[in-house]
């Protein structure tokens, strides 16, 4: 399992490397002192797992995750359990407090191995599919959202609004950028305003303006523009 350490204190990285050296299957593929270095290393060495300190100089750990197209499994490391961490304890892979207790670390790694194992095979595509996760932060709350749960992406200036469950948070990415990253077989750009997850469509009807009116399983009603309507029919018939 390839692990990337993201931690600004050199001694803390040394400590983590020492702890991880006891685990035979762990390979440390890189170390980053800040979010910028981390982004470069994530792109170049494609780690399976991140050890991420939340307090980083410049952009913090959350901002780093929010900037990534898809979030790799993450184990958060922090010196003191701030409520920001507690807020999403449930859906983070795990989080560790420093100094890290070895038995606590191996438990976290076991969880990570399972998650990485189940992701294997599905992954390694250039486009983002249903099993990919995105990190979403809305004020104090954070989620790792699996794309299969996202019904709809809506344009909101340079940002996009995600619809999943009962939540509608914004992510700092444009709809055009998302369109270029999402697998077009699964996520269709129905108009300038929306990208829809095809699996969430419950009914289709012709609309007044010559396009199509979609109803999603979440109850949302969105329109396929006339220009996109024929492409949309093709995509569905495939």
């Amino acid at each position, binding site marked *: 399992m390839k692990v990337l350490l993201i931690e600004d204190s050199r001694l803390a990285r040394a400590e983590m490397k*020492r702890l991880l050296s006891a685990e035979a299957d762990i390979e440390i593929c890189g170390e980053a002192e800040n979010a910028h270095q981390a982004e470069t290393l994530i792109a170049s060495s494609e780690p399976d797992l991140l050890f991420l300190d939340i307090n980083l100089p410049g952009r913090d750990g959350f901002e780093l995750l929010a900037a990534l197209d898809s979030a790799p499994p993450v184990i958060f490391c922090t010196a003191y359990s701030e409520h920001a961490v507690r807020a999403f304890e449930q859906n983070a892979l795990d989080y560790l407090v420093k100094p890290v207790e070895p038995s606590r670390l191996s438990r976290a790694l076991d969880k990570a191995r399972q998650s990485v194992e189940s992701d294997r095979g599905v992954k390694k595509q250039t486009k983002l599919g249903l099993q990919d996760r995105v990190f979403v932060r809305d004020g104090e709350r954070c989620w790792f959202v699996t794309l299969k749960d996202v019904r709809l992406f809506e344009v909101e200036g340079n940002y996009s609004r995600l619809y999943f469950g009962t939540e509608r948070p914004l992510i700092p990415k444009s709809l055009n950028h998302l369109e270029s990253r999402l697998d077009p077989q699964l996520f269709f750009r129905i108009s300038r305003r929306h990208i829809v997850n095809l699996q969430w469509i419950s009914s289709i009807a012709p609309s007044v303006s010559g396009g199509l009116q979609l109803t999603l399983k979440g109850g949302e009603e969105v329109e396929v523009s006339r220009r996109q309507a024929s492409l949309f029919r093709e995509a569905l018939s495939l």
Partner: protein
Amino acid sequence: MQTKRTILYWSLQFAAWGSYFTLCATFMYLRDPRPAGLLLWIFIMLGHLTVSHALRYGIRRWRWLDLSPARLVGKLFISCIALAFAVNLLLAPIPPILGLNSLAVQFYMFRIFVPYSFVLFAAWCLVYVAFQYFFRYRDSEMNRLRLEASITEAELRALKAQVNPHFLFNCLNNLRALVAEDADKAREMLLHLSELLRYSLEAARRDKVSFEEELRIVEAYLALEKLQYEKRLSWRLNIAPGVLPVLIPPMLLQQLVENAIKHGIAQDTHGGEIVISATATKSGLEVRVENTGTIKELGRKGFGIENVRERLRLLCGSSASFDLQTISEGRVAAIAHIPLPA
């Protein structure tokens, strides 16, 4: 609060004058059932109401309630006499207009009604002043309670000015790594950490420490932070020799340095420099902590500034001051003035 009291005032005004004169009118009606008589009483009531309202205006305008009780009573007494004449002069033309009585009767009435109005206004003053005194008492009581609460809060916050847990656990983690890397240095740092912890525990029980003692702890603290930030943290000291024995609140300088690290050094990938200076001024000691960075996030930082300010005031008196300012592009200084005890 103010609107509630205004509403209370007007309701009492109308209720008191209204009910009193309704009673008078009823008695009069039983003796002499002419509608003009009833109309007269309505005028009398409106006259007294207007004049008493004018009296209230005067009391508020010239702040009579701030006067000593004796002077207040004097002023009200004279006002009541004057207003008793005024209201009856004002009302004098009404009875003839209503065709009620002749000039002679009117003159007789005037003699009776002036003392009568005086008694009414005096009673009015009594009620009005009693209410005002009661409100003042209650307001001052509330202010006192509020003040007490804020002092307790400040004291609690002062007690909380201890070692930040985030720093502590990072420090312990770094020490754990240092033990393997450089055992001698780790032993030295452990000593610094125990010094700092002992000092911060004692700080809760001590009001003042010498600047020298505080500075020694700050140096220990900086050495420990250096483990976390390494090349990213550097500092300079600029201490006038005379200031070392000056007494300051414990953990004050430490708190300023900690904030400088948190908001200045930790935010920048290249870190920065902290300059600690202390100089003697005419009235006491000026402590200055400069760091690279900018002032932002006014909301939360504003609270931090208030916290330090309040603590200084509590421990060093009202002439102590604290301020945070941008001294040049990318440099921020926290400046505390600590007066010498008189």
